[in-house]
């Protein structure tokens, strides 16, 4: 049970910073609360008494959305459901809607925020690898000013980030990747409301003929303390002709990705299969030429 004496809903960043200053050492910042409330239960943190909760979801800056040709800016309070409801956003971030359908369920997606998913820094977070694949920059602000840093530097370990005590995550700036095909591969122990054992975000951009990989983005989570971009694989694929052999080659690159303490062998197997499966799906959505990938390959991994 989460017990507080006061629940504040600041309407501006300044109000939020003032509240944080006023209640220094006695507050916790919350957003969607979809993880905070389950956290404060038996078997996890148990009953937790926090004098002040500061809810940042009503701050206008945290709800912004700007889609440019090169970059997308999303406020930290963006609910995950927006990736399913907002077609323009889905085009600019083509793996994100695929991720969103796997993210918890329809209802939790309406509450859970992008910023919350990142700040929790769960190794199994679904949205984080997608953001990582977009070279996301985390925007941070405090009463003293603002700063930003790449997502890969922001998350330092399970549940650990570079967020300073007096800071808020205000938003994310991401590459706009319209024209890429996206996929999101995930496995857990069931098909809804499930924690990832492995999850993989894949985006692929092909040439006009749908035969050559112009660009690709891959990032994986669930298998190590923090999500990891797969740049080695991206480099291997970029500029090459799209073939089944190429995808299998990429999947077989010896990267030793799995660092989880449990289910290592299983995760290694799944990662390999997911790489090929995810690349096939993303390539198809990117308009792969029908003869680029054989039916046998699709049957073997699809």
């Amino acid at each position, binding site marked *: 049970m989460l017990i507080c004496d006061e629940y504040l809903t600041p309407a501006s960043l300044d109000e939020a910073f003032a509240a944080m200053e006023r209640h220094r050492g006695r507050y916790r910042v919350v957003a969607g609360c979809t993880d905070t409330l389950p956290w404060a*239960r038996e078997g996890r943190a148990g009953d937790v008494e926090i004098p002040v909760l500061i809810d940042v979801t009503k701050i206008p800056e945290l709800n912004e959305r700007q889609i440019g040709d090169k970059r997308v800016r999303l406020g930290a309070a963006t609910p995950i459901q927006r990736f399913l409801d907002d077609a323009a956003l889905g085009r600019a971030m083509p793996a994100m809607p695929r991720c969103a359908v796997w993210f918890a369920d329809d209802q939790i997606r309406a509450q859970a925020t992008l910023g919350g998913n990142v700040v929790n820094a769960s190794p199994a977070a679904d949205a984080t690898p997608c953001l990582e694949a977009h070279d996301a920059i985390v925007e941070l602000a405090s009463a003293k000013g603002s700063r930003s840093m790449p997502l890969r530097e922001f998350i330092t370990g399970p549940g650990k980030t570079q967020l300073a005590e007096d800071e808020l995550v205000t938003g994310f700036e991401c590459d706009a990747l319209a024209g890429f095909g996206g996929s999101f591969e995930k496995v857990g122990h*069931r*098909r*809804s409301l*499930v924690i990832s054992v492995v999850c993989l975000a894949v985006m692929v951009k092909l040439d006009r003929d749908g035969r050559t990989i112009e660009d690709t983005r891959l990032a994986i989570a669930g298998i190590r303390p923090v999500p990891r971009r797969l740049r080695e694989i991206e480099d291997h694929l970029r500029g090459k002709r799209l073939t089944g052999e190429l995808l299998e080659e990429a999947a077989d690159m010896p990267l030793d990705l799995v660092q989880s303490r449990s289910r290592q*062998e*299983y995760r290694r197997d799944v990662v390999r*299969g997911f790489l090929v499966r995810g690349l096939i799906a993303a390539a198809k959505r990117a308009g792969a030429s029908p003869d680029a990938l054989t039916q046998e390959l699709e049957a073997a991994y699809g």
Partner: protein
Amino acid sequence: MARKRGRGMAACWYGIARTATVDRAAAWAEIDDGGSAKIVTGVTEIGEGILTVLAQIAAHEIGVKPEHVVIGDNDTARAPEAAHAGASRQTYMIGNVVALASREARKRLVDVMAGMWDVAAETIRTGNGEIWAENTNHRISMGEAVACAKNRGVVPIGSATFGTDTTAIADGKDGDGSGRPWQAYVFGCQVAEVEVDTVTGEVQVLAVWAAHDVGRAVNPQGVEGQIEGGIVQAIGQGLMEDYQLKDGHASTSGFAKYILPTSLDVPRVNSIIIEDPDPIGPLGVKGIGEPAMVPTIPAVMNAIYDAVGVRVFNLPATPEKILLAMREKARRETMATQAAE
């Protein structure tokens, strides 16, 4: 193929009502003013649909509509003993005793009407809220009949008790287990069709065909509901659920960690209801709550084997277990081939 399909089947048997002991239940029935019926018995709904089943049975026996049956509270101080809501016994024990109590109440009413109409009681029929004498023009509503009975000083009530002819089994130290644990047995058989994703090891149960003897289906939709629910619970145990303890402490104490089947994890269930009436009870009914669950897991495990050639002996058949077993099998087959060369 990344997704391999297969089929498996399994059969089952089950005993109805309490095991190796004398089971019993009692009920009261009253044909009430206006021609409705009031049934009182000490057990209630746990979701299986027993209240509706009892209403149908009382309606059938008395001759009123099911919506005109009221089932009284389940209260040890206000209702006769019906014992527990379990052991697949509700329709069998409570259904049968409600039928008997209803018959007695009906008989009281019929006897009054037979006297009034001067006809043999056997020629009197009831149904759909009416009572009439065959081959005569005597036909009135049940409400009118109750009024007639009451004018003659008769309240048409009935009560009944229903017990089983069962025994303990010889399960003492040197016993052989012999005995008569139940008087009604049911049998069933299920076929499962599965798809195994060989990239992830996930199993999807796509369909189950479930044929179960229920004696007599009072409410077929309710029977299907029990079969469907039982199968999905079994799939939970077969594929995902796992209450884990470490040094006595649960690591799966909430629904985030204790994984249950969702709407996306369930097969299409095709139920086939078989009616082999119980010869002992007045209705021919038996039970379905528990037996529906019994053949599902082996049917699914047999289907997984059919699809990918690995057998899970230790439940649950998680994706990890399946995938690792497949890898192990492939490794063994490779070694065998190499050894043969």
